[in-house]
């Protein structure tokens, strides 16, 4: 798998008449809501505290996982430890088979995207049903979520209307209220029929062995509670020490994610009732690679609120599809190269202006620009992010800048070359692609030195 910052997608998005406008206004609204909700509390103090708790939790990850495991087992659950996304998906399938499940209702989960769980379930003859409205829309469209907390943010209400008309054979409407009701009615019986209910985890609390899921639609409650078997798929970085620590994160998560003071539902799974079963699958899938890197480790503090996406000038223009994998935006550009390999995704951290807005917004104070630069350096060191052309260009730049003669020659060359650059598109397809969205700077007709002399 090679993950490129998808240039065609970027081009299409930038030139589509509606998509970036929808995205940008949605993002702006999200940021406004958030600032209104933050105004009421000691925001910086909370962020500081959240950062400390996560730093502690990550430094003690092995202990906390073991503690969580023993408490979760005491509650009547079973824990599975899986190293790769593939292994996690296989174990998930094993559980479905053991319990004879024909369909799985799913709460919103980004980890499940890493596992490509829907494809795996479908291939095994088990029907995966996304229940979060945004995920439901994206699943119907056969697409991938383009935002961590708003999966269908790239679609307009008209897009959703015609999708429902086409796939669900209902009359066209672009009224979000009616569209939401259609999804509700369709999914109601699915919860009650499903053999397995799956959710991710926002937090795993080590001291109690309880899993916490935060959501607004009620689908998380139904997906986790209705079926006889509940499976939580949890990235290992989700574990925090205590229930009191959770309070800090609950103040931050909803405000950062959706601009709410508190999310509508904060579920705590205490344990399976009356013959029901509860599982937790711990997923590594590249997280220990982040952990092993003392700098990139900080990205494991992320609580997946999506705030860094909302303020990112790159994300706001191009949307989540262009990032090519599960996690878009600044946080995606930091974690993806470590999770899937620098050789495959080393390009992503370059899709950033390093403006720093993400660091200002992050509720757990992750120094994202610093991590982006770190991942860029790794990509260059490992030869995953430079081309012979680029190396040659930088080498000649260095030569030109190292002596006054070299510099004078370069200025002359630039003056000639600048005029010739309009011919770039005819040189090669690559040059044509490059010059399509860019124009060469014009070199002044007179150098400063000449002007000074003749003054």
């Amino acid at each position, binding site marked *: 798998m090679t993950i490129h910052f998808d240039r065609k997608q970027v081009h299409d998005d930038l030139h589509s008449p509606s998509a970036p406008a929808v995205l940008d206004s949605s993002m702006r609204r999200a940021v406004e809501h958030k600032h209104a909700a933050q105004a009421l509390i000691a925001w910086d103090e909370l962020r500081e505290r959240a950062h400390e708790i996560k730093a502690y939790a990550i430094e003690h990850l092995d202990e906390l996982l073991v503690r969580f495991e023993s408490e979760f087992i005491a509650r009547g659950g079973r824990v599975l430890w899986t*190293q790769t996304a593939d292994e996690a998906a296989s174990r998930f399938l094993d559980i479905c088979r053991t319990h004879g499940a024909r369909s799985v209702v799913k709460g919103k989960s980004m980890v499940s995207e890493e596992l490509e769980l829907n494809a795996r379930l479908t291939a095994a003859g088990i029907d995966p049903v996304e229940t979060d409205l945004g995920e439901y829309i994206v699943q119907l469209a056969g697409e991938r979520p383009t935002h961590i907390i708003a999966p269908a943010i790239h679609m307009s209400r008209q897009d959703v209307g015609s999708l429902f008309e086409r796939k669900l054979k209902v009359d066209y409407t672009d009224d979000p209220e009616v569209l939401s009701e259609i999804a509700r009615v369709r999914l109601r019986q699915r919860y009650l029929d499903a053999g397995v209910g799956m959710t991710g985890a926002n937090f795993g609390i080590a001291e109690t062995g309880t899993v916490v899921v935060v959501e607004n639609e009620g689908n998380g409650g139904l997906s986790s509670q209705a079926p006889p078997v509940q499976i939580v798929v949890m990235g290992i970085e989700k574990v925090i020490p205590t229930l009191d620590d959770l*309070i800090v994160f609950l103040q931050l998560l909803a405000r950062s994610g959706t601009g709410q003071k508190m999310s*509508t539902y904060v579920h*705590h799974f205490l344990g399976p009732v009356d013959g029901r079963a509860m599982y937790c699958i711990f997923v590594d899938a590249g997280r*220990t690679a982040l952990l092993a890197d003392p700098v990139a480790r900080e990205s494991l503090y992320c609580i997946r609120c999506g705030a860094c996406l909302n303020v990112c000038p790159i994300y706001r223009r191009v949307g989540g599809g262009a990032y090519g994998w599960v996690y878009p935006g600044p946080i995606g550009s930091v974690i993806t190269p470590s999770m899937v390999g620098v050789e495959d995704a080393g390009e992503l951290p370059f899709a950033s202006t390093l403006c720093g807005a993400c660091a200002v917004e992050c509720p757990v104070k992750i120094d994202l620009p610093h991590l982006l630069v770190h991942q860029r350096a790794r990509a260059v060191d490992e030869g995953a992010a430079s081309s012979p052309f680029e190396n040659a260009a930088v080498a000649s730049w260095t030569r030109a800048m190292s002596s006054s003669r070299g510099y004078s020659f370069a200025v002359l060359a630039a003056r000639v070359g600048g005029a010739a650059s309009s011919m770039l598109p005819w040189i090669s397809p690559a040059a044509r692609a490059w010059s399509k969205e860019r124009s060469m700077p014009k070199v002044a007709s007179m150098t400063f030195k000449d002007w000074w002399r003749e003054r």
Partner: protein
Amino acid sequence: MTDDSGRASFLARVAAALGRKEGEPRPAAPIQRAVGASTFDEETTRDAAALAIRFRDELGLVSGETVFVPDVGGVDAEIERIVRSRGLGPAESDLKKADYAVLRAEALIADTGTALVIERTAERRLAPYLPRTCIVVADSDALFPTMSSASLAALHAAARRGDKGEAVLITGPARTADIEKTLVLGAHGPRHLIVIIAGIQAAEKDAPS
């Protein structure tokens, strides 16, 4: 029980990534508690009526309703009144058919208009989610100013005792904004959420907050 295959190597991988050697002592937990997260003044936090009003105002901001009744004896009559005035069907034991469910809150958090509900049985586990109208009943003693160790004491206790089921913090009726960030109430859960607080005198209802 735990499936051992992979567990040991998993933990070894985590320890190695952290740069730990086997048997090496771990740094102790430097965890300190509680961060201020509210704008409450001390006065408000000691007065049940003021907390009740703050709760009502906060829940109102997220489209939930709050009703006060003077004592626990008045709760059933209030539920009757709500059911009649909204034309809801009769109480149903089958939640799939019920128009409404009545939940008991073990804590109310005024700062956010949040109710802590714990459902411990298989029969009741879908009560917060299936019916369109959700009626939550609590005593004024259950009111707390903020989300804190104190307000979550019932949750702590349930977790410690090994209670089964689900504890859920509910703040308003279900909602979604997944289509163009436009707010739609109801989504997959209740469209209406009404909290009845018993033990608040009628005269206190309109006291300044």
